């Protein structure tokens, strides 16, 4: 146990960071929607799933294989763009279809949660029974795709000091950091970002100050969806495969990461994502990989026992606790 842990320390750190980067990007979507609507958007995981299929579609259309080096970065950037656009649009549609009507009717948060679960089942099944079959021409059974035939990356190893990192993990890590910086700047510097923050803090006053709430909510879903799409493209780069239920466990983990860092707090999502990714990898090298989910959720419970509002606290919505 301990020997495994020590032997595996650097590889699991690298794995943990690249996994944590994906968690963090996905957690941003949860945390922003939660900050503005106080809703656990269960269907966000399925928006991510939609993103992975957009990435798959892009790679297939490009018809590239055996790419490496700079070309790989280009391919990833392009898939990220397409997946981000598709997932962002999907998230906006989701908000209009499943949440806005409830909001207009003054439904309780519990009703919205059930609507989210319903939407999640719907999107998942839509892909599982119709879209994958029609667009990608695979059998209806399973929904697992033989994507390896269509997209192969060339792995090269980069040495950073004593650590060896494969190029895909490096791209995942750097790409997500780039997106997080962009998002942080967007929320803190732009007018729309200020609108999002003010709505999260006090929607009534925000309306009085001339903020168009519907637009802000739409934008929040769009931005969250874009993040999920980019996360999906990076996920696809790393694992080269997807299926229609890929989002489920990843979504739960990402939401866990958001809560771990302090929900509603954008930097908290980042911290939570990396902490969760690292702990999961250390945990699986220590106890065996079949226990990694148990480790992740146990850590969540432990952290919340001592810090009931997460590691960084819930700054985005502190004012309306």
């Amino acid at each position, binding site marked *: 146990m301990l020997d495994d842990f020590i032997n595996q320390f650097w590889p699991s750190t690298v794995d943990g960071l690249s996994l944590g980067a994906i968690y963090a990007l996905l957690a941003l979507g949860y945390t922003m929607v*939660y*900050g*503005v*609507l*106080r*809703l*656990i958007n269960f269907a966000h995981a399925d928006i991510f799933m939609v993103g992975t299929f957009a990435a798959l579609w892009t790679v297939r259309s490009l018809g590239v294989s055996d790419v490496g080096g700079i070309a790989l970065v280009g391919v990833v950037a392009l898939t990220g763009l397409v997946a981000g656009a598709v997932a962002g649009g999907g998230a906006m549609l989701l908000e209009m279809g*499943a949440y806005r009507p*409830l*909001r*207009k*009717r*003054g*439904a*309780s*948060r*519990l*009703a*919205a*949660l*059930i*609507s989210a*679960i*319903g939407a*999640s*089942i*719907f*999107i*998942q*099944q*839509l892909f*599982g*029974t*119709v879209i994958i079959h029609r667009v990608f021409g695979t059998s*209806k059974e399973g929904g697992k795709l033989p994507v390896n035939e269509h997209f192969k990356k060339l792995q090269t190893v980069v040495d950073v000091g004593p650590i060896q990192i494969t190029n895909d993990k490096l791209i995942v890590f750097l790409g997500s950091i780039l997106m997080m910086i962009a998002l942080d700047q967007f929320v803190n510097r732009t007018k729309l970002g200020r609108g999002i923050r003010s*709505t999260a803090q006090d*929607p009534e006053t925000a*309306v009085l100050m001339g903020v168009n*709430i519907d637009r*802000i909510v739409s934008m929040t879903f769009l931005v969250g969806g874009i993040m999920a799409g980019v996360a999906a493209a990076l996920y696809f780069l790393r694992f080269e495969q997807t299926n229609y239920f890929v989002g*489920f466990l990843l979504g*739960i983990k990402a*939401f*866990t990461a958001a*809560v771990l860092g302090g*929900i509603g707090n954008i930097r908290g999502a980042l911290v939570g994502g990396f902490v969760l990714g690292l702990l999961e990898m250390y945990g699986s090298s220590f106890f065996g990989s*079949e*226990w990694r*989910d*148990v480790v*992740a*959720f*146990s850590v*969540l*419970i432990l952290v*919340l*026992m001592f810090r*009931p*509002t997460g590691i960084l606290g819930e700054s985005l*919505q502190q004012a309306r606790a």
Partner: protein
Amino acid sequence: MNLSKNAEGARRGPGLSLDALRHWWAGAPGWARWVVYLLLIVVGVLLPSESIGSFMAPSGADWPSMLSSQIAIYVLLALGLNVVVGMAGLLDLGYVAFYAVGGYTIAIFATKYDWSFWQTLVLAIAFSALAGVILGAPTLRLRGDYLAIVTLGFGEIVKKTANNSSYVNGPRGVQGIPHPPTLSEFEIGGVQPLKYGLLDSRPYYYLLLAFIIVAIIFVRRLDKSRVGRAWASIREDEDAAELMGVPTFKFKLAAFAIGAAIGGSGGVVFASQQTSITPPNFDFLVSALILAGVVLGGSGNIPGVMLGAFVVAWLPERFRGLQDYRMLIFGAVLVLMMIFRPEGLWPSRQRKAELAEGTGGMGGLGAEVPGPGQAEAAAEVGK
């Protein structure tokens, strides 16, 4: 609450006749209530009959086994979850964990130590209540959605642990769980209601019906007592309740333990009827569906919750003919139901008023601004 007046009127319209019925019920004399209760029990007893089954079940499906293995179990679980979510206002997304504790208790004790069904039932109820306390004690100080994610995590921990433990055969699960011992062979109308076996699933239905009736009486008595009032006060405003001297933590823990015990008893019957359980039986989807049943029916209202659980369990089974598309349609139906009846199919009077106020126990959505409808709703509450 950007409700325009028209939308408000349209929503209240069809509810009028139901409201009249409610008013009558609220003032109905004791004997009338007992007559209704007896009628309902008769309906419950006659439910597995062929003539109802031919409509309720798609051709080829066995209606009594659908009733016992799906619908009645979901109704029982929804009654338990309703204590936690509907009455105490705590969001539990990992309710399936207690169901799993019940199922695995009988799996272990009946196959490894040869305990009988009734012995394990008592033990399973104790264990699942204990699991509720173990989960609740450290986490019930958390508020709202933090509790939700912690319970969700707990559900996954239980499932994964069962999946990884060779003691319970990991992913292969436990087989050969015994049926309950036959109590008597007496026959009525072609059914032997106390003879449990593989062939006839109706005895299980009657067993679950008995469980459901006991659970209803138990939960209703609690709800009308000091405990129920304490839960309502916690649901509405936890800080105010605490200040008024309600020991909120104690009552929340009690709600958790009671809900867990009911869930555990459901798990025992499920395991003994199926004779085998595997970890995927205790998926997150079960938690989500039962919660959907509770909210869909009208969280907090016992008949509503039962109706909701019935709908959630029955719809996908009834429309098996649609094959792959049934879950697709089911997801869309969930969204539509929440859009058109956000307060649930059959909310209690009190909850309806709360929801009209936009606070409904767990509060409204965040980006929501009170509109002109609010004053109207407040006046409605005062009536």
